[in-house]
């Protein structure tokens, strides 16, 4: 069924199920407990994990498990028109959904009353920044040696007029012909669990199901890139 979508024309000439060129690097911030970079074409995300460490103020401490905090930050030079520095409404939201996408994979109960901070910086943005951020953050958490069940891989699914595509760029996000563009960021664990699903635009329930299938396939590719990055890190 999915094969039919192959007639979608994309501005950069990619196939409908082809993500942009991906690159991942692990252990790039010396002062962090764990760090990683993830790139989807022109979208570059940098993640650093700080912790587990003692949580202050004390009233935030949970004696049963550690707190996971996620900060998403778009650097002012990451977009064509300079963005105002500092966290805005959008940054808080994305930080929160990233936290939810990752928290179920980490065993936070081993670190009671402590905190794990994840700082995600978007160095260069060309859509799918939250997906790149989640991929980088998951790599950084693994690099920090935290006990976790599995990794998280994320990709965005889009709908250009009627056809589904994988990994949207900014140009595709602003597509206005026909039904317009729909943006559907998804995050999967390798075992097939969905940890993030958001949507912008409109989509029929059949196409949504198809989109999820497409996203799962694309996330498998992302997972391979993540795995490669972690395995090559030990070679040095």
């Amino acid at each position: 069924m999915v094969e039919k979508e192959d007639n979608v024309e994309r501005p950069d000439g990619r196939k409908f199920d082809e993500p942009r060129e991906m690159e991942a690097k692990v252990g790039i911030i010396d002062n962090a407990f764990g760090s990683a970079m993830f790139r989807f074409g022109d979208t570059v995300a940098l993640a650093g994990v700080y912790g587990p460490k003692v949580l202050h103020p004390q009233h935030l401490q949970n004696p049963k498990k550690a707190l996971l905090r996620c900060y998403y930050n778009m650097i002012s030079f990451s977009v064509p028109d300079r963005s105002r520095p500092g966290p805005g409404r959008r940054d808080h939201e994305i930080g929160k959904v990233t936290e939810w996408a990752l928290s179920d994979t980490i065993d936070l109960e081993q670190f009671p009353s402590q905190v794990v901070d994840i700082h995600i910086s978007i160095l260069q943005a060309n859509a799918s920044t939250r997906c790149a951020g989640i991929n980088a953050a998951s790599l950084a958490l693994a690099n920090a040696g935290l006990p976790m069940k599995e990794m998280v891989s994320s990709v965005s699914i889009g709908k250009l007029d009627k056809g589904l595509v994988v990994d949207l760029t900014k140009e595709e996000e602003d597509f206005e012909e026909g039904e317009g563009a729909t943006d559907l960021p998804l995050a999967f664990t390798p075992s097939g669990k969905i940890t993030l699903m958001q949507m912008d635009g409109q989509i029929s329930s059949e196409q949504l199901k198809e989109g999820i299938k497409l996203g799962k396939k694309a996330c498998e590719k992302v997972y391979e890139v993540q795995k490669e990055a972690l395995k090559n890190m030990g070679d040095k």
Partner: protein
Amino acid sequence: MVEKEDNNKRKIVVPGEEVVSGEYLPGDGTRKEDGKILANRYGLAEVKDNLVKIIPLTGAYIPRAGNVVIGQVVDVTYSGWLMDIKSPANTFLSVSECPTYIKGDLTEYYDIGDMLACEVTTVKSGGVDLTIKGRNLGKFDEGLIMNINPNKVPRIIGKSGSMINLIKEKTNCQITIGQNGVVWILGENIEDEVKAKDAILYVDNQSFISGLTEMVEEYFKKIEENK
């Protein structure tokens, strides 16, 4: 997947990856699911006989009872000292865990900023307790302190101390390595201490290679030639 034939062989695994399947016991950093042993963290997977465990490569130091660590006094209370042992938990050294009789102002014994070699006695969810009763434990009055990756401490010590003994012998320094990655070096002069420090940093950078003790011997030879 690690094959049954190449026993004791190590490979890097990522969280959630299958290490082996079959009749194996899950050790540190692994879990069993549907007869498969899966990795619970990132590290080197090691299969020894039928026990599977993961040796961490990165991450913070997690205290264990019996570990000797080097800590810094960060606060003084009425009943003891709060210590920083580079681990996330609250760490406490009680007055009753001191070998000498202590009376009056605790800062007269150990003050903020002092470095102490301690042993971990208990690890609970509330925090970690330390003791300085024991041989070679207590305050360092002089010397050099350096920090290394706590996951590489076993490499720097070497098999039954082979590596550390080599460094001690070549540099004429006294060295104490805490399991938390803090190293104390005391030599007759600064040059010896710096030499020992450089050697330890060399091992820290190289520690994925096997046959390391021989490499360090070569390293010392090269330094002597350059003089």
